[in-house]
Each structure stands twice: as C-alpha cells, then as structure tokens.
C-alpha cells in the first residue's frame, strides 16, 4: 500500500533565504482525496510546483510508487502519470475542445516527427479522437467538442482541463483550487466528477488545494494544514478543521 503512494520526505525550498516550503513530509495514498489547506502564502502551490518539477527542491525527496522522481523535468514527471490542474487552468485556447483532450493521448513515440509518416498514424489518431470524445462525455463537454477552447466558460475550462488530465492517464491528480471561481452548480458537477474518479479507480490519488471548507469536508478523506511552509496539522477533515490552531490561524474563529 505504501509503495503505491506519493511520498514526500523532508522537502524544502527557499527563495533568497525565505523558506516557502520547509521540511515537509507527507504521504498521499491511492483511492483517497487529500486536501491541502492553509492561508495564502503557506506554500501549497509551491509544494505542487516541487512535485511536478516546475521547481527543484533544495532538500528532500519525492518518491512515487517506489521511484525517486525528485528533480525530474516536468514532462518526464507527467509521463509518470502525475498530472496537474493549474490555478489559472491553462487550457490551449486556440485549439478546439476536442484537440485539447486528444493531444494528451499520444505516447512520446507517437508525438515524434517521424511517426507522422507511419501508415498506422491514421488509426492511432482515429482511436485517440474516439477516446477523447468519451472523456468529454464523462466531464459533460461532449456538445462543445468543436468549439474553440478559449470560448468556454471558466467552469467548463476547468472540466476540460480535468478531461485533459484523464487523457494523460494521470494516476495522481494535483488540483490547485479546482472549485475557485465556479458557480454553485458547476462546483457540484466538478466535485461529483472527482468523487467518481476515485470511486471508479481506487489506484488514483487526488490532492486538492482548497479554500472552501465545506468542499474540503465534502470530499477530502485526509487533510494537511500548511502554515509558513510547514505542515502543522494533518488528519481526518473534521479533526483538522476542529483544531484550535487551524481555527484561529486560518478560519479566523476563536477556539
């Protein structure tokens, strides 16, 4: 069980002497939705950057399924099936909705220049387009498949970005504020989707950075509370949200 998880050991990253992430140790287990909560600037997004290779840690290790993936470039980490939803979504705006999903479905070999001339290219692409359509049905965007992705609403763009992660075959989904900026109905749709993803495949690991505590209570099995670069509390959602320090520091409630 431990071997299937995403393990972070003593991870540190500082910028000009300021520790954005300090000695963070955590484990994210398959079949679970974990939440990272904490005030702005607590280091949650930096932690994601470190896991996905956008930033290189000063110290510490990231182990996924027993492999040390510390310091690999982002595209290699993505090939290990670790996917990420950015805070600002980052869909490919000038491509169609369908193309956004399709282009995450190819292997490195299929993406090479020379593969363009292989006779089986046509078939590989046809299969990919079919699969992309299925994924769009799953996230509820099938009707929009031929629209330019930039025309979608912000909520639809988030669903599209998640479809893209599923197309990548992501086993680990690192979601940075997935519900921020969404309408209530869109938020419900997205949370249902996340629950469904974990329920249908108990090998999948979902980690969300989330500021909405009702969302955290709704979906998270396990919560890490980060403050000033460190994890100061972790445990079941209701326990963490009930802790005195969390209530004072983060929720602004008196204990």
């Amino acid at each position, binding site marked *: 069980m431990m071997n299937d998880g995403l393990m972070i050991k003593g991870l540190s990253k500082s910028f000009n002497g300021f520790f954005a992430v300090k000695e963070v140790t955590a484990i994210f287990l398959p079949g679970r939705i974990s939440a990272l909560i904490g005030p702005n600037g607590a280091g949650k997004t930096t932690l994601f950057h470190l896991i996905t290779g956008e930033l290189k840690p000063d110290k510490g290790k990231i182990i996924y399924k027993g492999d040390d993936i510390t310091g690999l470039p982002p595209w290699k980490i*993505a090939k290990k099936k670790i996917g990420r939803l950015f805070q600002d979504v980052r869909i*490919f705006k*000038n491509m169609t909705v369908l193309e956004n999903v399709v282009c*995450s479905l190819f292997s490195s070999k299929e*993406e090479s*220049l020379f593969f*363009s001339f292989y006779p089986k290219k046509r078939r590989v*692409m046809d299969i990919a387009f079919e699969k992309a359509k299925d994924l769009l049905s799953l996230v509820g965007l099938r009707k929009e498949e031929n629209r330019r992705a930039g025309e979608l609403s912000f909520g639809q763009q988030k669903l599209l970005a998640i479809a893209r992660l599923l197309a990548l075959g992501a086993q680990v989904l690192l979601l940075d504020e997935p519900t921020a900026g969404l309408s209530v109905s869109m938020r419900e749709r997205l949370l249902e989707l996340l629950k469904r993803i974990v329920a249908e495949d108990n090998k999948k690991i979902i980690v969300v950075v989330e500021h909405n505590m009702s969302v955290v209570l709704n979906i998270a099995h396990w919560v890490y509370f980060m403050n000033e670069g460190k994890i100061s509390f972790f445990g079941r959602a209701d326990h963490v949200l009930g802790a005195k320090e969390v209530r004072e520091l983060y929720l602004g409630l008196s204990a």
Partner: protein
Amino acid sequence: MNYLVHIAIMIEIYIMLALSLNLVLGFGGLMSLCHAAFYGIGAYATTLFMLHFHVSFLPAVAFSLAFTAVIAFLLSFPALRFRGDPFVLVTLGFQIIIYAILYNWISLTRGPYGIPGIPRPEIFGFQITSIKEYFVLASVFLVIIFIFLIPIYNSPYGLTLKALREDEIAAESLGKSAFRSFLTAFVLAGALASIPGSLYATYVTYIDPTSFTIDESIFQLTILLVGGSGNLKGPVAGAIFMVVLPEALRFLGLPSSIAPNVRQIIYGLLLIVFMFFRPQGFLGEYKVR
C-alpha cells in the same frame, strides 16, 4: 507571358519559404528572424557544390538540404534556450552572422561580387533552360513539399507543436518535451528553406549576399503575418499576396524615382493595418503575440 511565369515562379519559391517558416512560427509559435539565412545557405551550398564539385542539380539539392539541416541543428541548441523576445534576438544574431560570413568570406563566396554563371539544372539528362520548364520544376518541388508537409500538419506531432505554441508550461505538464519538438521543427524548417534556395540560385543563375539579408527574413515573416499561420492555406495566400502586390503597384503609374520608396511604405503600413484589424492574418488560426 514570360513576365507572368516569372511571377508564378517567385510565388512558388515564397510559398515554400513560408510553409517551412510556418513550422516554427505557425506551429511552434517561435518567431525566427534567421529564415533568410537558411534560404541563403541553401542557395550558396547548391551553387558551390555544383560549381566546385561539379555535382549535378538533384544531388546538390540533397547535399544542401543536409548541410543546412546540420547548421540549423547546431544553431538550435543556443536558440532554444530562449523563448519570446530573447529567441527573436538570438535568431536575429544568427541572421547577422551568416550574412556577414556570406559577405566577407570572399575566397569561398566572392562576397559582394556574388557568384555568376550558376548552371541551370539538369535532371536525368534533361536540361532545364526555358522559364516555362523552370516553372514546371518549381511546381514539382512545391508539390513534393506539400505532400511531405500534409501528414506532418495533420499528426500527433503537429498537435504537440500547437499545444506547445499555446502554452508551453501546460503542454509540458501533460508530458510533452518542448525541447525535442522545437528542435525537430527548427531543423526541419531550416532544411526545407534550403530547397527554395537551391531553386532560386539555379533560376536566376547569379547570387549575392544581398538576397539573404535581414530584410528578406522580415519579408518572409510578413508573408506569414499577412497570410496567416498555423495551417497550409495561410502561407500560400500570404505568398501570393506579397509577391503580386509590388507588381500590381507598378501599374499605379508612380514616377519611377519614388516607386520603390512608396512600395516600402505600403509594406510597412500593411503590417500595421494587419496588426490592428486582423492580427491572425487572412487565413490564420491564431494571433502572433
């Protein structure tokens, strides 16, 4: 009649240049300012292979293609460390250096004197001499380039380049290596630019470095900006428009003393107008940033 055929040949040469530049700019989103340098390397390499080594036309084209590919490969390593404005400046640097080499390495290129007397192509014993035969030859090459590019434009590789153009960080987070895709695009674009170079050199039978200046690079870029990039029709439309426009302007009856200047001003105005009203060009699919 010959005048029209000449224009058609020039259009074909510029379509080839625009199609190859389109791989880097239209698909990769990288604005390269050294495309005329690759065009020039192709022209000079073909000329020198034919004159000094007495290679016939087709092998000379193939050698030039390989030679230009090697140069593009070497240049891509420093260039692809950069994106955006710094990339533009690095490629501008290459353009300036390669022009300076063509201009100053007199023992090899005869520098500003140029190289006259470039032999006309001979293909399988058939000597191409008339302008109409040359038009057929250029058309054959254009068709071959199209046949070569269509599967690339419509492939996982093409989609990957587009994704990288749209958002490199997001594309890398989905498992795409920007370096690998951009490297192949840059090398392929450079290599393909050598083919119109070979054709141009043997068509006009005289080359000098002034055909391969930064102005020429900007002209090729303008073709894509006006026609639109990211697909196959934009470069074609742009090349036709930009080659025919100055010819059409001749019939305006401007006094010959000011005609070239007016043409330059119209080019400049055109770029500005396009940026205002149609930043994606006539038929392009995205706006060059």
